[in-house]
């Protein structure tokens, strides 16, 4: 992969990291309502997906995909500030504050929104893919799922139906090792999730989700496969999330060190770039620029008004009004 492209991806990972770190700070300060899951540690996979998703494709982001949601906007002509504002519940958010972290959709860039009932969109993605297929559009419908989500029955219904109908679905499974506190090896019959997916007969690969080059190339291969009409594809990205459960770390020091220092996607990418003689300054400049942009989005979100109260009863039905008090 050429240096330019690697630098772009490096920047995208920083967009995500800066977004999540800024958000986390604001959440801890009590400025962000509800609950928060962050994509810290999983930037490479999200950046790899963002690099291939066209605005006319569809993706269902999971609860850690704020960064992917922002990147999608950015790559398709906008910036991520309305994603940020949504997390603050503001009128300027993509869903006017009605969705929040777990329901930030933006169909104009292919973002079909999270569904906070984990796994449910494994069923929904089939319908989008079916429509693409019936309309002979060479589009991709992508469901981002976690290792925990694999426990849901819809995993089976979805993979089975995608297979029998040869649907253009990409399953992007971010195996970060845990569902809340449950280790994947304890919750799943096979610690290698690909082995649970293989029975359905379409290509399943496992890749290092923290190696941006490997992750990007895997996504490229999958998109080629799907766009050329060859049916579904499953990628298991091995990754790790920084976030523990609640405010506590429950994993061993070694494990934390391995993932946050030795195998951090951004540090790994930086090392590679340095070895390719990219000056360290250049990398620092990328980080700073992203951090600055994110701070601006946060300011924008915080300066935005709360939604108009009329929104509370709007859009329940299309055919009927719902009465207020």
């Amino acid at each position: 992969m050429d240096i330019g492209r690697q630098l772009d991806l490096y920047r995208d990972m920083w967009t995500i990291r800066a977004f999540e770190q800024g958000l986390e700070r604001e959440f801890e300060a009590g400025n962000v309502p509800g609950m928060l899951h962050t994509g810290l540690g999983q930037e490479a996979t999200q950046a790899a997906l963002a690099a291939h998703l066209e605005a006319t494709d569809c993706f269902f982001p999971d609860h850690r995909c704020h960064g992917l949601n922002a990147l999608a906007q950015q790559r398709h002509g906008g910036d991520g500030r309305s994603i940020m504002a949504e997390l603050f519940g503001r009128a300027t958010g993509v869903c006017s504050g009605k969705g929040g972290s777990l329901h930030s959709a933006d169909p104009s860039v292919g973002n079909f929104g999270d569904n906070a009932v984990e796994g449910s969109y494994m069923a929904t993605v089939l319908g989008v893919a079916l429509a693409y297929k019936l309309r002979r559009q060479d589009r991709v419908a992508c469901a981002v799922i976690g290792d925990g989500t694999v426990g849901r029955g819809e995993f089976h219904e979805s993979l089975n139906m995608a297979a029998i109908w040869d649907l253009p679905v990409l399953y992007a499974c971010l195996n970060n090792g845990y569902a809340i506190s449950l280790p994947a090896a304890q919750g799943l019959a096979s610690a290698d999730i690909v082995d649970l997916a293989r029975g359905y007969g379409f290509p399943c690969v496992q890749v290092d989700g923290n190696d941006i080059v490997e992750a990007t190339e895997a996504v490229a291969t999958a998109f080629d496969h799907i766009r050329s009409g060859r049916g579904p594809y499953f990628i298991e990205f091995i990754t790790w999330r920084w976030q523990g459960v609640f405010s506590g770390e429950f994993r061993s020091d070694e494990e934390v060190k391995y993932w946050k220092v030795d195998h951090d996607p951004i540090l790994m990418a930086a090392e590679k770039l340095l070895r390719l003689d990219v000056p360290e300054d250049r990398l620092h400049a990328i980080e700073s620029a992203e951090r600055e942009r994110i701070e601006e989005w946060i300011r924008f979100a915080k300066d935005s008004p709360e939604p108009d109260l009329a929104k509370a009863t709007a859009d329940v039905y299309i055919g009927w009004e719902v009465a207020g008090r």
Partner: protein
Amino acid sequence: MTAPTEPHPKPGPRKTRKTRKTSMVKALNGALDLAMERFPEMFLIGESIGELGGDFGVTRRLWAKYGADRVRDTPLSEAAIIGTSVGAAMVGMRPVAEIMFADFLGECYDQIVNNAAKLHYMFDGQFSAPLVIRTACGAGFGGGPHHSQSVEGWFMNIPGIVIVAPSNPADAKGLLLAAIESDDPVLFLEHKALYRSRAEVDPGYYTVPLGRAAVAREGTDVTVVGTMRMVPMALEAAAVLAGEGISVEVVDLRTIRPYDAETVVESVNRTGRAVVVNEAPGTGGLGAELSARIHEECFHRLSGPVGRVDALDTPIPFSVPLENAIMPNPAIIADAVRRQMGRS
């Protein structure tokens, strides 16, 4: 082999065939056919709805006419059937899903309640879910606890969902076409015991508006409100009561959610007495909602409390005598009306 697999469960007595009368199954089939012609973005999805035409025959001949792409047989995956429908609807298709028996809606309850019903709202109007979920509900043929239920109570408290429940072939056709045209997600309840009921049905394309009740019989003494199979039962009771000098107005709700309170309230304000009939158990269902609403809106016009006729508060037993023992019937409805008139 002559015994049916998953039923064809003798749904209701076969009426003597009169010329030009159409069964509800045929009326629904005709509606789907007309809609499939008119709306290229429409497709049908469900279990054995293709070549077989569905367990009750509602989709018969459509697979041959429209092909397997638009009349899609699925595996036994109710959650995926509704999920697929929601996803397709999100990108502008108009799926009409069949869930073979309403009792199986439990399998896709999440998809209906948390996905279809909330989609338009939670994404601030950016997506809509114009899907229809057709399903066979109701008791009356010894289907037992998992093939006989009235499920409207499962969905009464869910904003965002439309529930349609026809009582006759002509309404069934017009309401189904209106449901397909609707941009809101519609749960379309087809009562098994009405599938073979017959009436004159306009062969052309027409809609019956959602959210509007019909006065199935005019009367002046007591208003009886019901849906689906309760409507013919109420009409039967009304005919008997007419002989006793009691004039019953029968209101057929047709849409259960959002329902036409205006027509109900207007009628009760005129008659001053109301009986609500409902095939589901009494506690917490449609009957409770209607009773509450009528009391609230017509309190000062009512001479006494609204009468209620429901199924008993039990699951549905297999044995036909036991099933009959828990179900409403015309005699029970007539008694409830007589009590309203102080004649019991």
